[in-house]
């Protein structure tokens, strides 16, 4: 779960296989022999890297196709670093990073950048906080000036009224994106049941209203000194620039910032759900929705990719098993989704389905459980595995198009660097999915879903708890 500073604004060798051969393959339903990969070459995002004496790691990727540049900074801190009573603080701090710094008066960060044709945004997740500036390539020095000032000189400019103001903005973000949105409070209700109170994933990134109220200027100071240091950040500069231009600018603006204390973390307690947990939440909704959530594995663990493919086989698109049964054939649901969500500390798998008018959640749960059991007993077909792999491969190609913004190449270089320690991990990442077999998917459906305990959350229209999923009704 990620929380942004703002909503995105509008204004982010060999030919194809012979068609006949492909058609024949479809007709007889034999897709065991993998088709030629969708991309002719390996996926590569070349980069160069250097580290300043204060510990700031810099990754430079040149892409001269469009005259733009992006500066993408990951601070290795997220909501999982928050202390009890201060949930939502990492995200509030992210907002404060735009409220001015010693040499950049409040408001100037955005004004200067817009006047140079640039845009910016930021987001906070459980494990990291990312910031980017995108703009014409000539604006690089300005971006680095602004980013270095808030990395090194934030505190003199942050006052209690500024904290109050952004507290108000963030609380409105919570209202807009959670409280005033149907089913908006479901995920936090799942997290508190899936993770024990002392686990860093127990609370949502957005935090509680009460904890946001409690955040103080002292919290800001402590958080800044602990986490917003050069040695706890990695910066990617990508686009129509060269290492020769980038390195001196980095030295100039960031070289003088002092190194901070090393960040140490206690590993979280092991997570175990000893029994199924059923819960019901009444909401201002027309239709009931059921959420099944399991503990799984962290990002890039051996079964992470297999679980993602399991999710896609179950519910990605109309050809998926659950869509076909629930929405298309039985017509008892309006929508269904399933996904693996792996973080640095832990992962979870969810299946979510919304009932059509006149149907209750036990009807949906029975079919969901049936389909999970079928997959656990018989596994997916070779064609299903191939279809999902092709979709994923095409998605990787799409991720090579953009340099900046959320999910662009710069952001992905930072992601891989932080999660696996290799910025250009694109091809290795894709290879994980290519290695997943039908037997893997079957084993995961059996061991991680069918035989594992879960949280079952029903969100029902107020006053209609009789529509909720009940224990024992579906197995």
């Amino acid at each position: 779960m990620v929380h942004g500073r703002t909503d995105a604004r509008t204004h982010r060798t060999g030919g194809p296989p012979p068609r006949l051969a492909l058609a024949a393959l479809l007709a007889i339903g034999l897709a065991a022999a993998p088709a030629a990969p969708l991309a002719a070459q390996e996926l590569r995002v070349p980069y160069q890297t250097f580290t300043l004496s204060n510990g700031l790691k810099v990754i430079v990727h040149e892409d001269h196709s469009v005259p733009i540049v992006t500066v993408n900074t990951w601070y290795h801190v997220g909501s999982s670093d928050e202390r009890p009573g201060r949930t939502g603080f990492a995200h509030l701090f992210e907002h404060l990073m735009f409220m001015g710094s010693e040499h950049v008066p409040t408001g100037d960060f955005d004004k200067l950048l817009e006047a140079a044709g640039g845009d910016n945004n930021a987001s906070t997740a459980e494990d990291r906080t990312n910031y980017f500036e995108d703009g014409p390539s000539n604006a690089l020095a300005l971006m680095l000036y602004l980013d270095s000032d808030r990395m090194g000189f934030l505190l003199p400019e942050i006052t209690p009224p500024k904290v109050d103001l952004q507290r108000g903005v963030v609380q409105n973000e919570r209202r807009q994106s959670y409280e005033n949105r149907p089913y908006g409070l479901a995920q936090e209700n799942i997290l508190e049941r899936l993770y024990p109170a002392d686990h860093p994933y127990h609370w949502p990134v957005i935090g509680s209203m009460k904890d946001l109220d409690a955040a103080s200027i002292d919290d800001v100071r402590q958080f800044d000194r602990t986490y917003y240091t050069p040695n706890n950040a990695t910066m990617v500069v990508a686009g129509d620039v060269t290492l020769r231009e980038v390195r001196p600018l980095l030295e100039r603006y960031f070289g003088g910032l002092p190194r901070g204390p090393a960040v140490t973390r206690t590993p979280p307690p092991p997570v175990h759900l000893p029994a199924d947990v059923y819960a019901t939440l009444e909401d201002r909704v027309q239709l009931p929705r059921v959420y099944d959530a399991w503990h799984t594995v962290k990002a890039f663990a051996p079964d992470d990719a297999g679980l993602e493919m399991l999710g896609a086989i179950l519910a990605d698109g109309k050809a998926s098993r659950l869509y076909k049964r629930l929405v298309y054939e039985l017509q008892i649901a309006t929508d269904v989704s399933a996904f693996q969500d792996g973080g640095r500390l832990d992962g979870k798998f969810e299946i979510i389905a919304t009932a059509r008018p006149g149907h209750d959640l036990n009807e949906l749960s029975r079919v969901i459980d049936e389909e999970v059991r079928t997959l656990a007993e018989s596994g997916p077909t070779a064609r299903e595995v191939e279809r999902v792999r092709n979709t994923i491969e095409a998605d990787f190609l799409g991720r090579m198009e953009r340099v900046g913004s959320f999910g662009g190449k710069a952001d992905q270089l930072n992601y891989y660097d932080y999660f696996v320690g290799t910025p250009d991990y694109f091809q290795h990442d894709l290879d994980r999915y290519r290695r997943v077999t039908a037997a893997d998917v079957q084993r995961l459906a059996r061991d991680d879903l069918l035989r594992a305990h879960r949280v079952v959350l029903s969100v029902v229209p107020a006053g209609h708890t009789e529509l909720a999923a009940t224990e024992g009704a579906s197995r």
Partner: protein
Amino acid sequence: MIALRSSLFAAAVAAAAATSLPAQEVDRSHPPTLPPPPALRTPPVQTATLPNGLQVAVVEMHKVPVVDVTMLLDAGSVRDPADLPGLATFTATMLQQGAGARGALDIADETAFLGAELNTYAGYDAATAQLHVPKRRLGPALDLLADIVLRPTFPDTEIARQRDLRHAQILQQRDQPVAMANVAFAAIVFGAEHPYGRPPSGTESSTAALNRDRVAQFYQANYRPNTARMLFVGDVTLAEAVKLATARFGAWPPGQTTKVPDVTPAAPAARTIYLVDKPGAAQSVFRIGEVGVSRATPDYFPLEVLNTILGGSFTSRLNQNLRETHGYTYGASSQFVMRRAAGPFVAAASIVTAKTDSALIEFMRELRRIRDDSVPRDELTKAKAYITLGLPGEFETTRGAARQFADLLLYGLPLDYYGKYIPQIDAVTAADVQRVARQYLDPDHFAIVIVGDRSKIETGLQALNEGPSVHRDMWGQAVQ
């Protein structure tokens, strides 16, 4: 070439000498001076017309082996019959529910198997069939596209299935205050008789009336090559695209098409607050506005600058005031929605319930101030630079470039449009901005639509004397 000309420029010159200092002595008292910005390079558009009238346009982008194909069809919601709002969007959805020898599930399965994304939808002015696919699968993916555009079968069972799904989705709109506000605002501003006033997704009763005959009839009348445009963006050449398109769409027979009749929007009422009740809502969703301009407006460029200043960027007046000064909202914005006919001007935000009345004061203050006072030079310069210097980024991805060029095709604008864009923005003066603000913003006739908890907000709103408050439902219709 654009240079920074505001006070920023003066400051930047002063700082220039500091750029060669060693790290420890870097002068942070001024932002750095910047070299001149790069020139905008937009890829050229190549075109061809097939014998049946189908226009093909190609923008080559060879960085990544993907192709984005956009097929624009003159079959948008403006063509909905008055008795059947929702027919255009429903027909677009139905294209994928059976075509040629393929059933709905086959289409979905084969699309995914090719690693392709295939979407069909309708907006007010056009229906769109969109394909995004790795280059290596372009041929078979175009076979699918041709099936759904040329040979949809509209099976009764699939009509019933999608109709039932749409019923549930309309029911779910009641949970979504933002969707409620958009539907009500359109109905109130344009009136239920105007195509832009009707809900593109239909109503409960119009959904119940959808059937195979009406869908097939709509398809026959409006899906024609001579009014269609096909745009390829990505790893493809004009010769390839023409060959691929001819093989699949060359035999598509042209047909007689009708022009969409012009309908005059309802005459604007005196400024009124329209309350749509949403008991227990944590926020009040605002939509304030009136009928604006069409895409063909001669004032396009001054309006872009005006809107950037008013509510089209993070530092815009509405966002600065309502979010960054007052903290009433997570974000406030405005937009001139330009279509073939005049679309709405709308200012929007979701406001914490307790500050609903205070927020209206600030909205109205900003909407009047931009008419009353000339825009300061710094603010004008910043807005123009934000638009012009940000333009290259819009052409970075195949999807982004496709959006830009599809607009030109849809609205009949010259294909070298973006080459002339920047000088026209640069030419906009403060006087131009004030002129278009006075011409196109009429606060005396704004419709102020608010979806929120009436019991908590109505008294405060009435006390402002910004107009009478009346009660409407989510369809914009009077509530007794």
